[in-house]
Structures are given as structure tokens and as C-alpha cells.
């Protein structure tokens, strides 16, 4: 068996095993539970949530911000590594592209879940005010979905052609589907030129679009003049946070996919080491912005801000705040600074801590601020002064997370998670280089 065939055999999408089927069914069960909760929310209204007059943005917006942040992985890993010619990116880019697409689709769905009247969704377009950051969000999310889809699709064309050929005899139906998706790809010069040009455009374009997405997400908060959000550095703070969430999610999923699909030969310790350094850099930048966001106000804060900071540092949100900061940020930096800390298994746990920390971080950004309005909370039931998600909110939250995983699972099932053609090309190139060197 030649090298090409070995690579195709290793990287082609494989049928689900028993464990994969159980995983997929579990995701579907969680999604069904969430859909039932959502239907109940539609029938009864938002009263089934614990969102009230003050905590009017709750766990749904935290989820939305988390998904938006995670989707940034497409911009940072794929585009930046591509434009800086980092060849080690090859086995990880497709997984990053899949995460990016799944996350941004779920961000769009989550924001609709937060709407009390989703039937009025069209009004966001019909009555859009271009001055409003919400309108910018309405524009940028579909744009990012399209660009993420294109970023995933263009590099897949040669792989679809390979898979069409590969499955021709064994699975003709699947081969036909891959053939259609391959768009008559033959690998001709004209096709390659068009593909490379398009990928380059997307790689350049996804960086400003990704930054715009994160910036608009931050501006949704910082234009509201609220304690904790009213900051001119909230946009770079969000971008750096998205960097962390995205790379953290990538590290975690790469470890799982590598193990599930037995890709140890392709995704090696070397890749984890590189990703570890990347994640450490992301965490350090984010830590810097955290210091900037929370330490500076200690010197200049007015009374309302002091209350807010006290609530975070020593009050009811302090456990979450310090867990997020120490376990989700400082500890990963320390671990990742050591070579042993950048080994796959350790990286998996670090990535997991970073991802969970990133989600809680969004909750801490959204909720405490809403419970500290400038005017005192008066004349409302005691329960309105606090916020903890209801059962409906939790079920829907887990369902959205499960949906994101299901999109990733389906993609991993039917798409080659490591680019086949590119891996073959790199192998050929390395062989040529070796020959040239030896001759």
C-alpha cells in the first residue's frame, strides 16, 4: 500500500462505532429535552426563566457571548497561521474551522432563543436602525456564518474529490454525494488557482470580520453605560477573551477527536506543544486585559463601581470570579509554561478548564452588572435582586451546547478532519526536499 492510500485510509471519514452512537444519541436526548423546554418557554413566555426586570440578560446571553467568542478560533488559528505560513497548522485547521462554524451557528440560534417573541425576528431587519449595535450584530453574525462555511468548504474540495473516488465501489451513494460537493474537482491548474486565490481572500477577510464580530459583541455591552461594561477597552478585552475560549475549545476537541479517530500519527505531541504555547500566549494577553479591567477601577471607581467590584472580589460572585481567574486563566498559564504541561493529556485538562472558565467568565460579565443598576432596586420582590437560571434555562443551555457538539460530531463523521490532499502534498514536498538534500 503506498503512502497516499495509507493517508486516505487513515483520514477518510469512518463509520460510527458503538461509543460514537451512544454519544450521538445522548446529544439528541439532551437536545430533545431542550426543545421541549423551549416550546414550553414559547407557550408560557419568558416567565419560565428567572430573568426579570433587572437581570434581563441571563444565561442565554452568556451562552451567546461564549459561542461568539469560541467561533473566533477560525480567525485566529486558520487565518493567522495560514497567513504567517505556519505549516504545523495542517492537522488542526479543519477542526478549528468546524468548531468555528458550529459555534457561530449556535450563537445565532441562542440569540433567537433569548427573544421572547421569535416570530418578530423579521422586525430586526425591517425596522433596523443602523446606529444600534444590535443591528450590527444582526448583520455580522450571518456574515460570519457564511465566511466560516466558505472557509470550511473551499479547502474541502480536493478532499471531496478524493473521497468520491475512494468510496466509488464500496459506497456509491456516499461517493455520489462527495462528487456533488467536490464540484467536478480534478485538480486542474485553473481550479487550483481559483481555489488558492479564494482561500487567501477568505483567510485575509476572516480576520477583520472576526475582529468586527467580537468588537460588536463587546459594544453591545459597552454602549449601554453600565457599571462593569462602560469601558473603552471592552472590545480588545472581548477579542483576547475570544482568543482564549477559541484555542481552549480547539485543544480540548483536538484531543478527543485524535483519540476517537486514532490520529496520533498525524496530530502529534509537537502540535500540542505548539498549541500549548499559543494558548499560553492567549491566556497571558487575556490576563493582562483582566488586570486592566478590574484593577484600574479599584483606584478610580465611584461608589456604584466599588459595590460591583466588591460583589466580584468578596461578594456572592466571588467564588465564580476567582475560580475563573485562577483555574481558568492563571493556572493554565503556569502549567503551559512548562514543556510537560504542553503534553496532550495535560493540555486536554488545561483546555477543559479554560473552556469552562470562559463560559463562567461570560456569566460573570453579564449578570452582576445587571444587578447593580445606577438607581437602587426598589419595589420589586426579593427574588428579583438575584439571578440564577431556572430549570428551563439550564435545559435549553445544555441543549444548545449539545447542538454545537452534534454539528461537530456530524462534521467529524462525514468530513475528513485532517485535510487529505494537503497532507499528501506536504508528504510529497518533504520527500522532494529529502531527495534534493541527499542528491
Amino acid at each position, binding site marked *: 500500500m503506498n503512502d497516499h492510500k495509507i493517508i486516505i485510509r487513515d483520514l477518510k471519514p469512518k463509520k460510527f462505532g458503538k461509543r460514537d452512537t451512544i454519544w450521538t444519541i445522548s446529544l439528541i436526548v439532551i437536545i430533545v429535552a431542550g426543545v421541549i423546554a423551549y416550546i414550553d418557554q414559547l407557550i408560557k413566555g419568558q416567565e419560565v426563566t428567572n430573568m426579570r426586570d433587572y437581570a434581563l440578560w441571563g444565561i442565554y446571553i452568556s451562552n451567546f457571548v461564549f459561542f461568539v467568542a469560541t467561533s473566533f478560533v477560525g480567525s485566529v488559528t486558520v487565518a493567522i497561521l495560514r497567513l504567517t505560513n505556519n505549516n504545523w497548522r495542517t492537522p488542526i485547521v479543519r477542526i478549528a474551522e468546524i468548531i468555528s462554524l458550529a459555534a457561530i451557528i449556535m450563537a445565532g440560534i441562542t440569540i433567537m432563543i433569548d427573544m421572547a417573541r421569535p416570530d418578530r425576528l423579521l422586525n430586526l431587519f425591517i*425596522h*433596523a*436602525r*443602523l*446606529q444600534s449595535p444590535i443591528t*450590527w450584530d444582526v*448583520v455580522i453574525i450571518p*456574515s460570519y456564518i*457564511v*465566511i466560516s462555511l*466558505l472557509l470550511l*468548504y*473551499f479547502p474541502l*474540495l480536493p478532499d471531496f474529490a478524493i473521497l468520491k473516488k475512494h468510496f466509488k465501489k464500496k459506497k456509491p451513494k456516499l461517493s455520489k454525494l462527495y462528487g456533488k460537493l467536490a*464540484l*467536478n*474537482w480534478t485538480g*486542474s491548474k*485553473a*481550479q487550483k488557482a*481559483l*481555489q488558492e*486565490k*479564494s482561500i487567501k*481572500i*477568505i483567510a485575509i*477577510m476572516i480576520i477583520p*470580520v472576526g475582529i*468586527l464580530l467580537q468588537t460588536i459583541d463587546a459594544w453591545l455591552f459597552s454602549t449601554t453605560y453600565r457599571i462593569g461594561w462602560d469601558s473603552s477597552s471592552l472590545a480588545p478585552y472581548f477579542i483576547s477573551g475570544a482568543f482564549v475560549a477559541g484555542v481552549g475549545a480547539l485543544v480540548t476537541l483536538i484531543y478527543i477527536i485524535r483519540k476517537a479517530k486514532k490520529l496520533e500519527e498525524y496530530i502529534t505531541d509537537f502540535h500540542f506543544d505548539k498549541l500549548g504555547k499559543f494558548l499560553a500566549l492567549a491566556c497571558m494577553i487575556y490576563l493582562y486585559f483582566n488586570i486592566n479591567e478590574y484593577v484600574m477601577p479599584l483606584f478610580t471607581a465611584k461608589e456604584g463601581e466599588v459595590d460591583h467590584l466588591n460583589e466580584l472580589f468578596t461578594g456572592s460572585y466571588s467564588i465564580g470570579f476567582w475560580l475563573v481567574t485562577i483555574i481558568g486563566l492563571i493556572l493554565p498559564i503556569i502549567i503551559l509554561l512548562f514543556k510537560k504541561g504542553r503534553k496532550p493529556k495535560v493540555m486536554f485538562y488545561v483546555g477543559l478548564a479554560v473552556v469552562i472558565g470562559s463560559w463562567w467568565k461570560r456569566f460573570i460579565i453579564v449578570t452582576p452588572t445587571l444587578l447593580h443598576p445606577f438607581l437602587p432596586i426598589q419595589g420589586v420582590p426579593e427574588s428579583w435582586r438575584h439571578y440564577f437560571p431556572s430549570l428551563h434555562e439550564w435545559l435549553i443551555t445544555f441543549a444548545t451546547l449539545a447542538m454545537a457538539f452534534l454539528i461537530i460530531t456530524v462534521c467529524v463523521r462525514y468530513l475528513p478532519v485532517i485535510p487529505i490532499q494537503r497532507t499528501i502534498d506536504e508528504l510529497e514536498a518533504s520527500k522532494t526536499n529529502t531527495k534534493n538534500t541527499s542528491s
Partner: protein
Amino acid sequence: MKNLNLRHVVILVLLSAFIIPSLCQKLEAQNSDKIKIRIKANYTKVIGESSYIDITTSARIDKRNTNIANINLTVFSENDDDELELGETITDHDGKSRFIIKDLNKLLKDTLGFYTLSFKFKGNDIYNKASNDVVFKDANIEAKSFTKDSINYVSATIKDVFLDSLLAEKLLNVNVKRLFKSLPIGEEFNYTDESGTILVPVEEGIPGIDGNLVVEVILSDSDDYGTVKALVNTPFGKPVVFDDTFDKRTLWSSRDKTPIFILIFANLLIFTIWGIFIYLIINLFKIKKS
């Protein structure tokens, strides 16, 4: 039979001797448990508009003065033994009420021209009955504005209506009406001269809508006349120029008044991004055909 009756009478007297005082004590205790209501009343006359009495009902509860709501007061006009019921008024949730005097001429007055209005509360299960009165005479302030030697003035003359005599040495306050607290103008103390008149210059540059200022001349809390207020519209103000952004293109205006720079910048971004998307999708078609 006679003895029996006498015995009954003795028993009855003895029983009464014990029961009646205890009943009286109970009644007295009930009365002493009730809260004492205080009624405060102030007379105000706004020239050319209305005359009214501002009433406040309060009580000492838990060593604190507290205004009492829903106290029904009957208003009487009195003169010696004559009494004329004018109507009823109920205090609001702040313990306040305003009783409008529809026609001063219909009230009873004494030979010196004093009106006496009394306010009576019948009492209820919680509060004792209470009453108070307010005594006042009718006065009139005639205020006008004029300009002399490029200086704007407001003059006001006060007189006793019943005696038809001008009132000298009366302290009048002159203010420009503002949205919240009025702005005092003139000297600190403006006493009327022998002709019952004061003359107050109005400073230039006080802002007013369309340059109009409402100047109020007030005789405050006079023992004889209560509060008498005259309002005069003057054109002595500096016209207010409203910074009205309603029709302007601002970040907070409606969608049809979006600032041009946002329209250009946002549309440029949207069309550039989606234009590139279209170009990329065309490239996909080209790949398929080539």
C-alpha cells in the same frame, strides 16, 4: 313586698355604684386610646385665578409627626354665631387637601372684613374629633411691568379690599418663576412704600421661553391676609435656544435619521463583505465549470 322592693333598690344601687364607674373608666380609656389629630390650614390667593386653603392633617404617632390620610373635613364659614357649611374635603395619601374657595363674596365676614373658615373632623375609631380655623382678610396685588431708561421693572401695589386702602410697610417677595424653585430678584427685602407699592428692576439675561418671564409678587404668610400672589408676564427674558436634536441625524434618532457617516461606513462594510462573498460563490461556480 315593700321590703322586697327596697332590697331590690339597694342591690341595684350597689351594683350601679360598682358597674357605672367601671363603664365610665372603660369609655374614658377608649377615648384616651384614640389619637389626637392636628389640622393645619393656610389661606392663599392667586390674583386673577383662585383662592384656596391648603390643609394638612397630622398626628403624633410613635413620637413622630405623621401626616394622616383620608381625613374627612367639613368646611364652615363662620361669623359670631352664624355658620355656613361650604362643603367637605378629604386629605390625600400625603395627608393634604386643597379646598378651593369658589366665591369669596359668598362667605360670612365680620365688621372688620375678616373671614373665618373652620375645618371640623367628626372623629372615628382611631382618631379623636378635631377642628381648626383660619382667619383672613381679602387683599389684592396689582402687578405690572414696564421699561424705563432701558431698565426693566416690575411694580406691584397691594391694597386691602374691604377697607379699599393701600398697605404700606408690607414685605413682598418678587421671584421669576422657574421649573423648580423660583428665582428671587430685586433686593432681599422689598417693603411697600406709603402708596403700597414696590418697584423691582428685572435683570437682563434671565432665560425664558420665547423671551417671556413670569414674575410672581408674593405677600407670604401674612397674619391678616394669608398668602397673596400676583403673576405678571413680562417679555424681559433672554429667549431660550433649544438644542433640539429631534430632526437631526444623531446616534439616538430614528432609523430614517441615521447619521450619514454611519450610513456610509456601515453600508460600505456590508456591501464590501457581501460583495466578496458573491465573488467567492462565483468562484465556486467557475471551479465547477472549469
